[in-house]
């Protein structure tokens, strides 16, 4: 076992992990932050996306010890300080960007990474950016609409 320290959603945390422990397992089992999901465990589906030092990564594809000293942000850190939903989360709710919700934490984290680097993405740019996030329920359309709305753009530009 080794000790690992990082900042998760603004709070310093320390834990004991094995060398093989994945970041997602440390978040879920070590810290009880179960909002980050595991869909495929093979780096494909994106249910496990978190931000490490501001960049979106698949936390099933990173060892906890590789995040030593890093700033990690998970879906639990997305709401506003008063507990209300962030603009992106609210837009997912308003535009029915989720059904079962399994993919949603990863979708929201990817959407946040996209809007941080490209605040007014086109519909095509949104679809391209989500190529590493799979959803089995929505058909993506309402997810794209939600992200357009969260970026302050008119959702009617998304082709029906």
């Amino acid at each position, binding site marked *: 076992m080794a000790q690992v320290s990082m900042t998760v959603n603004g709070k310093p945390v320390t834990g004991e992990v094995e*060398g093989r422990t994945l970041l997602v397992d440390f978040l879920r089992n070590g810290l009880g932050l179960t909002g980050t999901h595991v869909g495929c465990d093979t780096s494909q589906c994106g249910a496990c996306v978190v931000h490490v030092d501001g960049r979106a990564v698949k936390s099933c*594809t990173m060892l906890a010890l590789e995040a030593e000293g890093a700033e990690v942000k998970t879906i639990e850190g997305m709401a506003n300080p008063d507990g209300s939903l962030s603009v992106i989360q609210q837009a997912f709710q308003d535009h029915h960007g989720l059904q079962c919700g399994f993919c949603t934490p990863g979708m929201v984290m990817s959407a946040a990474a996209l809007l941080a680097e490209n605040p007014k993405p086109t519909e095509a740019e949104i679809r391209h950016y989500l190529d*590493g996030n799979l959803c089995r329920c929505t058909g993506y359309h309402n997810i794209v609409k939600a992200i357009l709305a969260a970026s302050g753009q008119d959702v009617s530009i998304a082709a029906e």
Partner: protein
Amino acid sequence: MQELFRPRDLSEALAILAARSEVRPAAGCTDLFPATAAPALQGAHIDLTALEELSGISRTPEGFRVGAATTWREAIEADLPPAFEMLKEAAREVGSPQIQNAGTIGGNLCNASPAADGVPCLLALDAQVELASAEGRRMLPLGKFITGPRQTALGPGELLVAVHVPGEAARGASRFLKLGARRYLVISIAMVAVRLVVEEGRVASAAVAVGACSPVARRLEAVEAALVGAEATPALAARVRAADVAAALSPIDDVRADAGYRLEAAAVLVRRAVSELVTHAGECAA
């Protein structure tokens, strides 16, 4: 895996590998994890992501140095001449943004998949690899480093430290085109990297490499020879002969495509890349 080493210093890393040759390098882990059948990595690993000497892209007196642990994302963001555009185009299509943020160029080369998108680009940049072990350092042309599917010239205790692109190869303009069964998150059926240097309206030098159509990605010398000296007009693409493309390649039939389709796709992609480059001929100037 009970053990994970995370050295910050290359000499420390090489000492660990010298003492324990079974310890496997791990960088972005985007090839390692999906290739692990067990629920967790097995055996001891050494994480390379904290090694400063392996990170980032820099200019050197001889050209450019790409640290082995440079992520695809860092390559996309680097300020590089147009000769590197193909590498950036490949980087933008590796997996998804999250894979680009974690996966490294060195991992792509060391994993040595016939479908590794970085390989044709770096072949067309005449890349040399810098290898280090506790014994010392050596340089090898990339074409000699990847020796077969999933096989490299890495010796026991040796790490890929950097990829070097000579200044002479950092000239001209370049294009990367990849064909997959769908647009994104896809393993290449065929991919091509083409770099052209145009001087006074003629092709002064050409580098053409094709991946996923032979056990190891290859440069197509006969195709390059047919381009050099020719006028850089839209007619240039017609000089890419299907027979020259086919002679250099030995594609396989697999679930993704059969060999004949791959050959045809490779020729079409090379022609398309050439014609796109001459249409923007201004950018090809040295």
